[in-house]
């Protein structure tokens, strides 16, 4: 008999729960030293999934092979989109606390990811997002007041009160209807991309998932179908370290990176500093150009940190050190891009203050307009619309039940 003893079950633990010290010493920050050509075979760029694409250094200077060398105007537009997204989040979070809506999800600390990729994509490219890519809608200029009307489920809610706050749909803005079931959209995005290729269109799809939901079967379906049919899709994984209270190790992030998932499917993978606007832009550009050149899908892991709670329904200090966000080594995306613009001489502190005041006023104006229509419970669409849009034409059951409801 062997003396190796009995087996033991391993359950990953973050080692950074309340009362423990915040610790990011194991974070792999090895920089990516090479930008491959977009037609590089997946097998010839495997090192990318274990390194980190970074452009901005600690002092705000841009360097390295991935520097997208953007002009000042583009950079300022990016900064403004991120600032507007943050201002919107803060206002809506407060609105939930004031009882004006039931639910809200912020993307604080992750703004660069959605905003930069939205600037790379064409407006007609379809985004299949999670609930934390409101930055895409905002960057594409979707009216803030419409978002708020949806969040308040008021009489002007574009989704007729059918859907939970923040689960937007905006077809004309290339923004696919959001599901509350995490992960389902990932494989749908691949189908949409296959359709575009089938029609010999030029549009591509942008798919989004969180580190936690990569454990869903839909993730495997998506990567399998994307690889098999060489679908023109960018498969984004936002690794923000936390799925509500579960650290990314519970989704399988302990032994390898999420970008490395790509290797088993024969897809190229990139791993990116998600708090570096320029790195996000550059990696997105690489993947978008590859997809649009009919070279197929790319998996991108954006390495970032969810610096606030999952949603308005949880208190992160109950499951992670209260000061963990302060120890996050990759900083804040807005601060970092601002620093870059300051260092490059493309922005002054006064310009920044003016920009901040402008976006704050933009959000305030939209909120005033939306709240004049009404907030949750104070205003809502006509109850008869409860029976709309089940089928294109209602069948007898729907008509009869609408009568029964007396609406």
């Amino acid at each position, binding site marked *: 008999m062997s003396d190796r003893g009995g087996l033991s079950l391993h359950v990953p633990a973050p080692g950074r729960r309340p009362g423990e010290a915040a610790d990011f010493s194991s974070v792999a920050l090895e920089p990516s030293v090479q930008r491959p050509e977009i037609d590089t075979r997946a097998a010839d760029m495997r090192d990318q999934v274990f390194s980190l694409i970074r452009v901005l250094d600690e002092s705000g200077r841009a360097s390295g092979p991935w520097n997208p060398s953007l002009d000042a105007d583009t950079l300022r537009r990016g900064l403004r989109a991120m600032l507007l997204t943050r201002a919107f989040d803060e206002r809506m979070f407060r609105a939930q606390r004031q009882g004006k809506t039931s639910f809200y999800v912020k993307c604080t600390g992750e703004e660069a990811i959605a905003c930069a990729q939205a600037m790379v994509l064409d407006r007609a490219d379809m985004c*299949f997002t999670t609930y934390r890519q409101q930055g895409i809608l905002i960057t594409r200029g979707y009216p803030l007041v419409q978002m708020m009307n949806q969040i308040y489920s008021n009489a002007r809610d574009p989704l007729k009160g059918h859907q939970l706050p923040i689960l937007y749909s905006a077809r004309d803005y290339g923004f*696919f*209807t959001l*599901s509350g079931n995490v992960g*389902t959209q990932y*494989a749908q995005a691949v189908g949409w991309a296959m*359709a575009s290729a089938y029609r010999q269109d030029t549009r591509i799809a942008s798919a989004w998932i969180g580190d936690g939901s990569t454990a869903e079967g*839909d993730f495997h379906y998506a990567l399998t179908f994307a690889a098999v049919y060489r679908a023109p899709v960018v498969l984004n994984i936002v690794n923000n370290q936390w799925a509500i209270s579960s650290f990314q190790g519970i989704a399988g992030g302990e032994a390898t990176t999420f970008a490395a998932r790509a290797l088993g499917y024969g897809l190229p993978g990139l791993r990116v500093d998600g708090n570096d606007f320029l790195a996000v832009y550059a990696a997105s550009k690489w993947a978008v150009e590859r997809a649009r050149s009919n070279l197929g899908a790319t998996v991108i892991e954006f390495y970032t940190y969810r610096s606030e709670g999952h949603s308005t329904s949880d208190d992160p200090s109950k499951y992670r050190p209260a000061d963990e966000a302060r120890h996050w080594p990759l900083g804040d995306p807005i601060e970092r891009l601002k620093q870059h613009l300051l260092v490059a001489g493309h922005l002054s502190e006064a310009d920044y203050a003016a920009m901040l005041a402008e976006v704050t006023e933009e959000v305030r104006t939209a909120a005033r307009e939306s709240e004049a229509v009404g907030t949750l419970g104070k205003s809502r669409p006509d109850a008869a619309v409860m029976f*709309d849009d089940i089928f*294109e034409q209602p069948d007898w059951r729907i008509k009869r039940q609408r009568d029964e409801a007396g609406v």
Partner: protein
Amino acid sequence: MAVMNMVQALNSALDVMLARDPDVLIFGEDVGYFGGVFRVTDGLQKKHGLTRCFDAPIAEGGIVAAAIGMAAYGLKPVVEIQFADYILPAYDQLVSEAARLRYRSAGEFSAPMVVRSPYGGGIFGGQTHSQSPEAIFAHVSGLKTVIPSNPYDAKGLLISSILDPDPVIFLEPKRIYTGPFDGNHDRPLTPWSKHPASEVPQDYYTVPLGEAAIVRPGSALTVLAYGTMVHVALAAVDEGGFDAEVIDLRTIMPLDIDSIAASVNRTGRCVIVHEATRTCGFGAELAALVEERCFYHLEAPTERVTGFDTPYPHAFEWEYFITPKRIIDAIHRVLTA
């Protein structure tokens, strides 16, 4: 007109729609080069091209998810799930996604797609090749469920399903692919060519969703059935010499409640037949609707003749599968109650 069995009629429907509409495309496990394990897509890839009819990975959830994305783009995907028993990995995508896109986006997005799947028992397929899961789709708002019983209807209903603006679950009773099996397993199967519904136009035509067919008129009671059970019910009525009206529902969602209510209000008695397990089966819904619509005309309690509430047992195919005798017994009880 041509004489076709169910497989040929379904193949013809797909062929016609591939030719008519470049946005129609087909994919699923083994449907491409090989033409499907039941041959429904035979020859379509060769005739219409690789991208119009192609093989998919063994991933039912992925097949349906991809179809949803394609439908949202503007194509009309027709996907095959090789056996209805295998559809459950796709259930989340069907229930939470395909059925809900239109509602949750207030009409901005929809999923006009068809999920075809061979279904039902009578082929010694055991637990995983015999089940009848229609009730789990009928229960979901936003899905339509179609179950044809003969070649003519199969082609016309499949074309209607492809044209439909909403997602359709199209269940093909595999026991009647080659002939109208009537539950008498110990007798030779009559081929479709001996049945009038095998006369099928070669070109385009439709049979509308939501319209039942009275396949045998009668006045003493009404038998409600669909799929293979239509033929078993007809055999039971013939063998028992009953003056029964047999209604083939053809689509269970949308349901032709008016035809059902008109018939039962006239006959005053009702027997419901389906292969699926009884508890919460579609027969429960039918019985409730008959009570709501026909209570004051009913002369007897409505009976259900259904699959038993067990998994589908391999060795006991003909004890489990509904035979004319079980229906005859039920009709006797309802007529004498």
